[in-house]
């Protein structure tokens, strides 16, 4: 990460819990503008929650989330909506509107917010669909698309309003190698061509290390490591090594906590 790049999102000492369960204790991170920042961590660690906190859909218990210097959680509703027009989110399920075809899905936000005439909207939509390779699928319904195509259509919708930042929620989960390759290429190209700030939340180590400029690793309710992909590959932290190497046993144990094995086997039924 170059020091000259401006920080777009700054999270400071954020804590968040759902009911009794603590998700984050003290998380601070900064997301530089125009770069691909990845947030990795095991399943169930609350990575999607982090994106929702950045997008203002959830409110932290303490700490702040600044987007371009503005505290996301101190905004009124209209200010928050103004901020959200500058960011976009690619949901894990794609979240395409099931009652509209692909074209209308991509055109939806433009029709709502841009005030452009339909003729120009049509051109913009076709350009966005061309960028993800789905111009030919414009008239199909979301249910007629494969999982990978749905995610690409959702990506076209996410870039329709030309946001400054895209939040990717597990973009590679459940994709076959070809769609995975397509998505990796698209995320990298969009980021470079449009100078987009990308935040990729994922646990697909190889893909993420391949495209990210900077990586944060979440575990145990906090950030356990951060750095460029090269730095992380060389890191000595055993927990990090286990995660990146995909080793079945280590600091994160293979066995769910249980009483002594031998004792349980030899014990009698009550």
């Amino acid at each position, binding site marked *: 990460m170059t020091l000259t790049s401006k920080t777009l999102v700054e999270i400071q000492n954020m804590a968040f819990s759902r009911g009794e369960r603590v998700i984050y204790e003290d998380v601070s991170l900064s997301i530089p503008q125009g770069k691909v920042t990845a947030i990795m961590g095991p399943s169930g660690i609350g990575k999607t929650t982090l994106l929702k906190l950045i997008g203002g859909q959830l409110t932290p218990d303490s700490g702040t989330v600044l987007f371009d210097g503005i505290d996301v959680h101190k905004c009124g509703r209209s200010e928050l909506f103004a901020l*959200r027009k500058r960011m976009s989110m690619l949901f894990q399920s794609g*979240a395409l509107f099931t009652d509209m075809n692909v074209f209308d899905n991509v055109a939806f*936000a433009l029709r709502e917010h841009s005030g452009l005439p339909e003729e120009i909207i049509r051109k913009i939509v076709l350009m966005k669909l061309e960028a993800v390779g789905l111009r030919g699928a414009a008239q199909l319904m979301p249910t007629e698309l494969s999982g990978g195509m749905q995610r690409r259509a959702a990506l076209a919708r996410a870039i329709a*309003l030309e946001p400054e930042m895209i939040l990717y929620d597990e973009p590679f989960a459940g994709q076959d190698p070809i769609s995975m390759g397509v998505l990796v290429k698209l995320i990298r190209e969009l980021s470079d061509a449009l100078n987009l700030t990308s935040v990729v939340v994922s646990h697909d180590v190889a893909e993420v290390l391949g495209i990210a400029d900077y990586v944060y690793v979440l575990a145990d309710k906090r950030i356990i490591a951060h750095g460029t992909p090269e730095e992380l590959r060389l890191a000595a932290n055993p927990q990090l090594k286990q995660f990146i190497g995909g080793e079945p046993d280590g600091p994160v144990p293979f066995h769910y906590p249980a009483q002594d094995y031998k004792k349980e086997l030899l014990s009698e039924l009550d």
Partner: protein
Amino acid sequence: MSLIDAVARLGRSAIDLVVGLGKAGLMLWGAIAHRPRLRKGTPLLIKQLYVIGVQSMVIIIVSGLFIGMVLALQGYNILVGFGTEESLGPMVALSLLRELGPVVTALLFAGRAGSALTAELGLMKSTEQLSSLEMMAIDPLRQIVAPRFWAGVISLPLLALMFTAVGIYGGHLVGVEWKGIDSGSFWSILQASVEWRQDIVNCMIKSLLFAIVVTWIALYRGYHVTPNPEGISRATTQTVVQSSLAVLALDFLLTAMMFGQ
């Protein structure tokens, strides 16, 4: 279980009830308390009127016909014993206008449209469509909930009128065409005994209130669903059970107020 546990459970469910009512109130307030957007809102409303209203017409009309026919047949058998079968017209019409029209329509509506609304919203929530609207800076309450609410409120009273009209026609079929009551006296006694204010306006008031309750419960259950398949199926069941019970209880209250004296 100790007594204190029972009291604690009672208290918890009371708190849950109040919290639920508050959430439902906030949802409805957020959906309808704003300036109407004619240009964007009208197409959304028309689409929902079609889905919620027009697509419920078949079940409403067929049920209305059969209920009117059954009512006339049973009524005829009793009335003929007293030689008053000429009063079949008002008997059918008043039963339908005052009670069966609004109530049965609301119950059928809860089963047909209410459960569909809950399932649709639940699916939208679990596939993150509602979240994605929010992230697009579009309020899902205004975009999704409001048109469905208004469509329900407009559709149900109209459906209740249709149900009643078809029911009276069913009564005519059985009474006049089959059992041979004089058509002139069927219609003239019916006309003389149905009052505009007492019967027809009250029918509309009832079904309007039922419409608000049923649609509100259906939307609330869908909007606050636990976003997984099990949650959706539970929410759909809850919609039908709760809105049916609410309709029946509310009907007693309204009937007591309208016809109690």
